[in-house]
Structures are given as C-alpha cells and as structure tokens.
C-alpha cells in the first residue's frame, strides 16, 4: 500500500537491479574444474576475458550523464552493465580456479596494474575524456564487440562448463553491443561532413590497438579445448568490419599497429599510461578502507 512497507525488514536477499543477480544467471552450471587443466593458466585466461570486460565497462560508464542524448545515456549504461556482469562471472571463475581465498572484489580492487591482463584497446581514453569523443567510443565498441562476439561464439563450446555458460549468456549481449556500434557507425559516417570526419578520426584512434586482439598467447595455447586461439578470430572479425565499412563508405584505417614493450602487451600486464589513473580511481575507496564490507 505504501512504498515504505517492507523497508525496515531487509533480512531477505531481494531481487536487485539487473546485473547484480549474477549467481542466479548461471545456476545449475557445473562449477567443477575441467580435468587435466593447469589452474594457473585457467585463472590467467579468465582474467584476460574478465579484465577486458571490467575495464571497458569502467570506461563506458564514464559516459553516464554525459551522452549526446538521454536514449544514448541509457544504451551505454546498459552495455557497461552487461560487460560488468560478464566481468563478475569471469573474475569469480578466476578466483575459483586460483583456489586461493579470494573473490571478484579482491581481484578487481587489490591487484596491481601489472597483474591486469586486459588488452590495451579497452583501457585508453576514447571519450568523454580528452582522449576521444563519441565517435572514438563507437569505433572502439565496434572493434571490441566484433572481436568479443567472435570469441564468445567459439567459447560456447569450451570444455570448461562455466566459460561455456558465460559465453552463451554473453553472445546475446555482445551481439546487441555490436549492432548498436554498427548503427552509430553508419549514422556518423553518413550524417554530416563533420560527423564523418569524427568517425574517421575515431577509427584511427583505436586502430593501432587492433592487432593486439589477435596476437596468439601462450596461455591460450596451453588450454586446448578450453580457450579460444585469438589468431583464429581475425578473418571473421575482418569480414564483419569490412561489411560495416562498406555500408558506411569508410575505408579501413591505414594506421600501423602499436608496438609491445619488449614483446609484452596488455595480456602480459604491460599497459598504457592511462591504466594507472583508471585503476587509481577504480580501486581507491576499496583500498583505503581495509576490512570494510560493502
């Protein structure tokens, strides 16, 4: 009858806003670790995929209250929430595989920069900060979601039942992300002269980070049947992007890939200078109140 009823009685776990009931999302999935798996490798692999989602979610959430229109505020928040949900499942799996007493929050908030395994593409500022704008954000989302959709589709057949289930859930979400980015790419490329310039510049901003997505990694190679070999995704991703570029009358950017550092990139914990600031902000409250419960 009144909106206050039941407020004081908070003993039960209520249905929270979506994105938080993540254990229910995978209920019934066998959580036993697959036979003959190197748990250190499985942990590392879950962190790679989980950190990609977590860090891009952190970046996309920066648009909240800053988007070009309200509908877009809602849409970008939705995408950020989907990715955050995926990150939570994957970090939880990483914690399980690791076997040490830790959880998603320990992994998200107490690891140092060199322990994060995300690709550099997701951590750079593509707007609303000075490093980009809405077009650069869309360009990154287009590239990343095309890559991640191809990856998750293959991962649905993983020998790890949890990774397979996370992938099956994620495929539907990321298909929407890719579609959203593709539609905006068409609009911006085909809108005004100015928006077309911005879209071209946005693609140029993110293109140096694309090769890293497909660099084969030893962790993947050591997890046959469980992980996806990134190198095998390139053809499909190229084809999808070329289709979008053709529809938008855009040329594939002619920008050289960014070098690694002594052979090591994001997947090995070597990041861009932007990453330290991102983590400082993300981890600050958690780290400054030791022993707190949230």
């Amino acid at each position: 009858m009144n909106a206050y009823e039941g407020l004081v009685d908070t003993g039960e776990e209520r249905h929270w806003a979506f994105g938080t009931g993540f254990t229910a999302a995978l209920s019934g999935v066998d959580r036993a670790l697959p036979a003959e798996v190197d748990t250190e490798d499985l942990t590392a692999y879950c962190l790679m995929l989980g950190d990609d989602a977590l860090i891009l979610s952190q970046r996309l959430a920066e648009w909240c209250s800053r988007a070009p229109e309200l509908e877009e505020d809602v849409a970008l928040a939705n995408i950020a929430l989907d990715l955050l949900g995926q990150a939570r499942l994957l970090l939880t799996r990483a914690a399980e595989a690791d076997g040490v007493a830790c959880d998603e929050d320990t992994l998200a908030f107490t690891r140092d920069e060199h322990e994060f395994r995300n690709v550099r593409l997701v951590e750079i500022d593509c707007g609303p900060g000075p490093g980009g704008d809405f077009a650069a954000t869309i360009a990154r989302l287009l590239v990343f979601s095309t890559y991640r959709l191809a990856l998750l589709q293959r991962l649905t057949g993983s020998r790890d039942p949890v990774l397979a289930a996370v992938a099956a859930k994620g495929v539907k979400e990321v298909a929407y992300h890719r579609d959203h980015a593709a539609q905006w790419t068409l609009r911006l490329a085909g809108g005004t002269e100015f928006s077309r310039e911005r879209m071209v510049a946005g693609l140029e901003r993110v293109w140096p980070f694309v090769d890293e997505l497909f660099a084969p990694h030893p962790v993947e190679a050591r997890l046959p049947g469980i992980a996806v070999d990134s190198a095998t995704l390139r053809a499909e991703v190229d084809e999808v992007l070329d289709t979008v570029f053709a529809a938008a009358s855009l040329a594939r950017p002619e920008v050289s890939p960014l070098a690694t550092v002594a052979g090591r990139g994001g997947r090995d914990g070597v990041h861009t200078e932007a990453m330290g600031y991102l983590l400082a902000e993300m981890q600050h409250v958690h780290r400054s109140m030791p022993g707190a419960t949230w």
Partner: protein
Amino acid sequence: MELEHEFERVVAADHRVEPRDWMPDGYRRTLIRQIAQHAHSEIIGMQPEGNWISRAPSLRRKAILLAKVQDEAGHGLYLYAAAETLGADREDLTAKLVEGRQKYSSIFNYPTLTFADVGVIGWLVDGAAIVNQVPLCRTSYGPYARAMIRVCKEESFHQRQGYELLLTMMRGTQAQRDMVQRSVDRWWWPSLMMFGPPDTESTNTEQSMKWRIKRHTNDELRQKFVDMTVPQAEKLGVTLPDPDLRWNAERGHHDFGEIDWAEFWQVVGGDGPCNAQRIAHRRKAHEDGAWVREAAAAYAAKKSGEEQVA
C-alpha cells in the same frame, strides 16, 4: 463554458484528464512546468550519484549504482514524454534547463562526498521523492499519473538499495559507521527541504490542490516523511542531527526543529554548493553531443529521402 464545466466535473470526480481533452491554459502551463521540473530533476539527479560509479568499492555496488543512475535517465525520458503530450518539446525544455530558466529539485545542488552518500541519497532523497510522488500517481492528468506509477515503483527499489547499503556499512568497520553518520548529518536537513517552503509561504499549492495536480500540502508531506524515517534511523543505528526531534503523543507525530529557510532560499536562488557545476555539466553534455544529434537527424533525413525515391 461547457468545456470548462466538463473539465471541472472530470477533475472533481477524480477521473483522469487525457491529452486530447479540453483543459484550461493555466492547468496546461502549470503541468508543463511541474512535469518539466520533475524531468529535469531526474536528469540532474544522475550527477551526484554518478560521481561515485567509477569508485564504487565492490563490483556488486558498482552494478547497482550504474543501474540506478540509468533508471533516472529513464525517468527523465518518461517525464519528458508526458510533457510532450501537453504540447511541450524536449529540446526546448532542455534549453530552458541549461539556460537556468527552469528549475529542478534543489537537493541535487548538494555535493556527494563519500560512498556513504550513495546509500543516504537512496534512503533519504529517494525516500522523500517517494513521499512526494506517491500521491502523484493519482494526479488528475492521465499521462503524468501513469508515468509516476512506473517511476514510484523504481524509486522504492532505489530506496531499498540505499538502505541496504547503509545497513551493510553499519555492520562493517567503525570507519564505515562514522562515514554513514557524517553523511546523514549532511543530508538530513536538505532532505526535509525537498518538500518545499512551509505552507504559509507556498504560492502554488492552493490552485494545484484545486486542480488535483497536488493532493497534500508541503508540510503534510514533510511530517509524513519525518514520521516514517525516524524508526528507520533507529533501526539503522544513526542519529538524525536534530536535538528537537521527539515523539509528540498528543499530535501523534514527531516534532522537529526549525529548517534553515535562509539556506533553502539561497540554494533555490542559485547559490547552492553545486548549482553552477550541475548546470555546467548538463550544458556541456548537451553541447558536446549536438554534432551527434545533428548527424543522426541528417542520416535519418537522407534515409527517408532515399525511401521516398525508391
């Protein structure tokens, strides 16, 4: 005359006025102003809590907060849509907001200084919003009433989330309990101000009550809020910062201290701690996004042109 009688009959019978019905100009103007202010409040309200999304101390809290702030954008959308049924235009209302010609709830001109503020805003600010808005679910204008039913459901969810965060923090470390108490100290009085000036000084109330846009006076709603909140504060273990707050058995209500109306009018008048910052933030987002909206419009126009040719 006939139309006016029909309108009055509909309102008096507690039926809903619908967009195509005849209505007095003053009724339409009052509603547009109120619904627009309400929509602006939802949108400006995204900022104080949005301030903590990037720093939320657990992934679950981050998800809850992001979902909540996203809900507020949704509330803004429903309400702008309701205003548009009265002939208003979202772009025009947004221009009025960023030029400071239309107001929004003053509560959002206060700063969020710690993560506890996320919980306290959910508990007190969403809580006060619910007390204000539940009667609006029966307001005389149909589209507004229907929007409010949806909004109120979601606000009560927000309130619950905020309160649950505070309960969790109060069971945590002493540093967390102190953080919650300091936050309550800062938000209590501004929350009471959310019900507007005292009835003796409220200019809009009488006509709005007659038109059944409004159903209770500011002071009635404020009292209701205090009476509901006191037991919740006790259960939480925080002290509400008012030495005059006590149960009055004779009235059957809590007595409470005098609100600092000078601060209220100062904030309403534009000199609150964050007024300029909130408007500048909204204006920047709107201006930075102009080329994107233009591109979308140009693209849509080209597409519909192509379809007509084809």
